[in-house]
């Protein structure tokens, strides 16, 4: 308990340090999430649109989930060396699979009637994708991005071990900052993870088409770690 109150004290006394490390942490996580979105979402959407490659699209996240984060960073250290780039690449590898699977499932399971109605109205495949499938797929797609984003923010802590900076720097520097620093760093990371979760939940709500809002709200309440009944 003593350590905990000391940690609150620490947070108050080192606002500048916490702020700097938080910015580093967010830059690293943001870059990784951005790159992962650019890679995973187009591939997932495209496969879902074509209704092809389900085995690949679904199993990639099973493999992704199994990848030990520190091991991926370690391989990166061997191949790319110490620093920002290595950690970012590792985080992209860890984040992209969940996004890809969710994007695939989101587009793939769009109501077939809606797609057929759109075709009957004379829409081109491109229009079907952009005007019908994507809007209907957005909530589930964002659920994947949200899960991945929270995972990235939490895992970016390990970046400190590989010279990537961020709030993990405070946690691994117990000799300098003491146990209260470790607790303070953990609190900062937990708060950041919750804030990420909240921000993406709002974003998810914002992109949910009005007609889907009711269902969208259920998705909102859905916890990040959903139990997988039948993976």
């Amino acid at each position, binding site marked *: 308990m003593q*350590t905990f109150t000391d940690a609150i004290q620490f947070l108050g006394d080192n606002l500048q340090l916490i702020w700097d490390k938080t910015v580093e942490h967010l830059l690293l996580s943001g870059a990784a999430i951005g790159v992962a979105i650019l890679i995973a979402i187009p591939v997932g959407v495209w496969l879902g649109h074509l209704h092809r490659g389900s085995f690949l699209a679904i199993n990639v996240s*099973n*493999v992704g*989930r*199994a*990848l*030990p*984060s*520190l*091991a*991926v*960073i*370690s*391989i990166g*250290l*061997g*191949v790319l060396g*110490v620093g920002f780039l290595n950690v970012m690449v590792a985080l992209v590898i860890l984040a992209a699979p969940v996004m890809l699977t969710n994007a695939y499932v989101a587009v793939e399971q769009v109501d077939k009637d809606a797609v057929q109605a759109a075709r009957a109205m004379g829409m081109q495949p491109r229009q079907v994708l952009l005007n019908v499938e994507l809007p209907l797929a957005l909530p589930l797609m964002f659920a994947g991005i949200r899960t991945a984003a929270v995972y990235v923010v*939490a895992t970016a*802590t*390990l970046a*400190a*071990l*590989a*010279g990537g900076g961020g709030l*993990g720097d405070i*946690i*691994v*520097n*117990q*000799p300098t900052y003491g*146990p209260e620093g*470790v*607790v303070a*760093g*953990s609190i900062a*990371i*937990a708060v950041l*993870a*919750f804030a990420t979760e909240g921000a993406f939940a709002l974003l998810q709500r914002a992109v949910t088409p009005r007609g889907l809002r009711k269902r969208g709200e259920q998705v909102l309440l859905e*916890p990040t*770690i959903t*139990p*997988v*009944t*039948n*993976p």
Partner: protein
Amino acid sequence: MTALLAQQGPVIPEFERGSDCVRENGQFCFDWFVDNFGDVFAPRLVEHIELTAIAVAIGFAISFAAALTAYAYGKLETPFAIFMAFLYTIPSLAFFQLMVPITGLTVTSAEIALVSYTLLILFRNIITGLREVPEDAREAARAMGLTQWQLLWRVELPLALPAIMAGIRIATVTIISLATVAAYIGVGGLGQPIFNAIQSGFKTQFVAAGLLAVLLALVVDGLLVLVQRGLAPWMRATRA
């Protein structure tokens, strides 16, 4: 701190008798890996499996008891879940360190943290599995005169098995991942060669230890899928 050491340049082990690849610190020196697998990696691999197995076993015992209690007394579910979610949000690097003043640089410290991380995943899946048992099956069982206890063990738990196994699978790969971080407090496992490589900057060791951990996770994940199918053969039809 440790990362800074790596930046100061690599310290290559066994400088004189290493191959060209080792002396030049190549990205992956297969010869060194083969020569050192028995000494450097095999014991760490065994430790890693032990760390994981103990954590999942204890974690399962606790969350199984908690889930059955919460299933019987619904009011307890939320407090349990909140407590477990709290444990789950503690960054692993911090959790291991924070246990050290209490239980020392021991396997116990590592296991307390690892067990804590399994709870939320297992608890959620067990309780969701029990909830999703069809009401018809429950009613039929009651109509056949099964007691509450028989209903649980003969109907509900078997039907919840796929969800429970899925939970065990997610928990196990999660713990394999987190157990690499446990080496930070010196309890061995495949994280140990990774942290040694952070000190020495020896690339082959980074890549080899990382690949072994990835391989271990994928193999165990695959094995658990097979176990899951073996235990719940009726799920196979619905999978396809």
